[in-house]
């Protein structure tokens, strides 16, 4: 199999370039990450992030033949004989497949991603019905891999002003939580021409999410709640 990989080391390269690697695969090589680890055993200068290798830590997001995904759960068998790997688009490249995610995390932090409930906590757990808990499914599972936000044209244009799909999914995760008491403040914070309303339902986020989550739907729900509270 042939891998064309984006290479850039600011310490020695004037500009980025693509480097080709040929790899003879064995039956035990199932996922794209297995291939990357083998390539790195031959050329240790290839830099990429990885950790859990099972799609739950969110480290190894990259652009695979033009589409964002996680290397560890992308099956080699599902890829063509030529694979082109680039860093996630729209974020500054630190080196090779490693991007600077500062702006992405800043937007995540901006939505106050933690439960807010100033009422004195009861001695035991706060109660929540199974239905109310069910409302968090499809939201809390986000792994912050940034596949979605870096596939979003609105985020490419305004990464400093538009929260982006990942951050907005988490904003809705706390709005939807019956235990959270800050819904009004959360909505006020998002009622802004950029923070929420730069989403134009392009739905690239839904297309690329490796956990099959649906940020566009969550964003739609936030907009619905805003409309309902306005009338």
């Amino acid at each position: 199999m042939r891998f064309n990989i984006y290479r850039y080391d600011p310490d020695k390269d004037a500009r980025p370039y693509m480097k080709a690697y040929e790899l003879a695969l064995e039956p035990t090589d199932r996922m794209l990450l297995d291939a990357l680890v083998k390539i790195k055993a031959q050329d240790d200068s290839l830099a990429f992030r990885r950790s859990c290798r099972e799609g739950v830590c969110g480290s190894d997001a990259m652009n695979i033949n033009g589409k964002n995904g996680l290397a560890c759960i992308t099956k080699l068998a599902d890829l063509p004989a030529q694979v082109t790997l680039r860093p996630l688009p729209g974020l500054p490249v630190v080196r090779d497949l490693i991007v600077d995610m500062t702006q992405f995390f800043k937007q995540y932090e901006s939505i106050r991603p933690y439960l807010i409930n100033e009422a004195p906590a009861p001695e035991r757990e706060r109660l929540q019905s199974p239905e109310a808990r069910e409302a968090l499914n499809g939201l809390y599972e986000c792994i912050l891999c940034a596949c979605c936000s870096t596939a979003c044209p609105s985020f490419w244009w305004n990464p400093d002003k538009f929260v982006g799909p990942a951050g907005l999914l988490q904003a809705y995760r706390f709005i939807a939580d019956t235990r959270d008491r800050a819904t009004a403040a959360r909505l006020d914070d998002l009622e802004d021409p950029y923070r929420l309303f730069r989403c134009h339902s392009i739905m690239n986020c839904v297309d690329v999410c490796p956990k099959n989550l649906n940020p566009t739907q969550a964003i739609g729900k936030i907009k619905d709640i805003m409309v309902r509270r306005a009338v």
Partner: protein
Amino acid sequence: MSLPVRTFDAMVVGAGGSGLRAALELARAGLRVAVLSKVFPTRSHTVAAQGGVAAPLANSGEDNWHWHMYDTVKGSDYLGDQDAIEYMCRRAVEVVVELEHMGMPFDRLENGKIYQRPFGGHTQDYGSSKMAMRACAAADRTGHAMLHTLYQQNLHASTQFFVEWMALDLIRDADGDVLGVTALEMETGETSIFHAKATLLATGGAGRIFAASTNAFINTGDGLGMAARAGIPLQDMEFYQFHPTGVYGAGVLITEGVRGEGGYLLNKDGERFMERYAPNAKDLASRDVVSRAMTTEIKEGRGCGPQADHVMLKLDHLGAAVINQRLPGIREIAIKFANADPIREPIPVVPTVHYQMGGVPANYLGEVVAPAPGNREAVVHGLYAAGECSCVSVHGANRLGTNSLLDLLVFGKSSGEQMVKAIRESPAAHKPLPTDAAERSRARLARLDSARSGERVAEVSNDLRRVMQAHCGVFRFPELLVEGVEKMQAIAARAARSFIDDRSRVFNTARIEALELDNLVETAMSTVVSAEARKESRGAQARSDFPERDDANWLKHSLWYKDGSRLEYKPVHLNPLTVESFEPKVRTY
């Protein structure tokens, strides 16, 4: 070499569950705390925990901490320290309820309380045949939900993070006190000294010393290597848990919660073989028991597949509704890594290295303890350890499922509390750094910078993993152990001569892997040497030549020192804090 010095009240090395729980305690107390992590906090391996966290909430049937304590002592094969186990079980409800208040999305019962499921080795009424519903779960993503919740709370508390910084070595002065760490910033390649009054190791386990592991790439035993190089012993390192259900060929974890929900194991004859090995608990016997049973089935020719080298985990009878609601992550993993949709077909599984029961010796307040003249458990001033890198020892020779997430909450919190107390009682000024504070790290980095040839790091570390896999498995054989020690000595020598091509200062992951190899070597060496020396079978250590537990000679903790690869032993704490001791007895499930 004079390095930049950054000064804090407290340092936390590692941002998994225990590190984040401790950091929260420190930040909320208003102290200046720095949290160092090789990866962005939510990428830490706690994220991969699946089935649940133990707490006797009694939301589904009677339960109490006494029963939980008994199960944990028995599960440990009586090697666990009973004071620490009592401490953990008594604080379980508190730390889990607290986590719920922080926003953890636990699954719920109809009455709105936290959903709980049965798990291996957790029983009612001191080991009766009735299983306790003790595992508090967020579907099969409990670790993910927990890690994100703890990170979110740390954001709220404005904890200061140093992300993608790798800690290299502990700094100890002439008194033996720990004054902080040296660390490498991956993005720039710069090394700094972090000077602190209290330093917590929360670096997780080292499952990556084995070829087949459920563990993440980052689990390279960094805190263990740092401690060993600083002259601190590693405790009970022979005890590595093989989880019964890693995906065959891939190693990815399939939670014991599958069996908690009613799944079971089958051999090639379609027989539910655990009924023979554990007539009461069956598939929910403790992990060491189930892993040995599976290995025996395979060895005796009753394994599945063309190589007869795995068994099957059946759960289709649970129905699509239960699988989709309670085990959605498992379904995803099985489809991706085993090409099997568990709604229709069983998952091929094998026992796979999962958890390190041993670690840096610590008491239940998180203080690191090591032998000193006149005191077998003298506190190492300034150093704390919590979570999988520590050995408190609550898991003894075998950990019960769901007790690891509990361990990191309880001891993350207690070590944070103890650090706050120690810092408040300490003088205002930091103890001065020794002049050679960064010497050990400098030498390690200089060697890597000057090495131009030799063996590649990846070759040596792959060989290390193969040796450990072949010589230190579910069943351990005397000749293989002796040979394993010799092979590890050769690998340690090769590691010291390994080299990397990458010369860049910017995000040099080859350098990181080379530095990790140093830690893999210390961890693997301590494991195989301690295993070879322990002439008995207990919990996760099963020797062919000594098949029985030997309390007369071996009811004691191992302590391995890097210096001379030397072993010492210390007694088990058989006395709990307030209740009667559980005397060792024959362990059956």
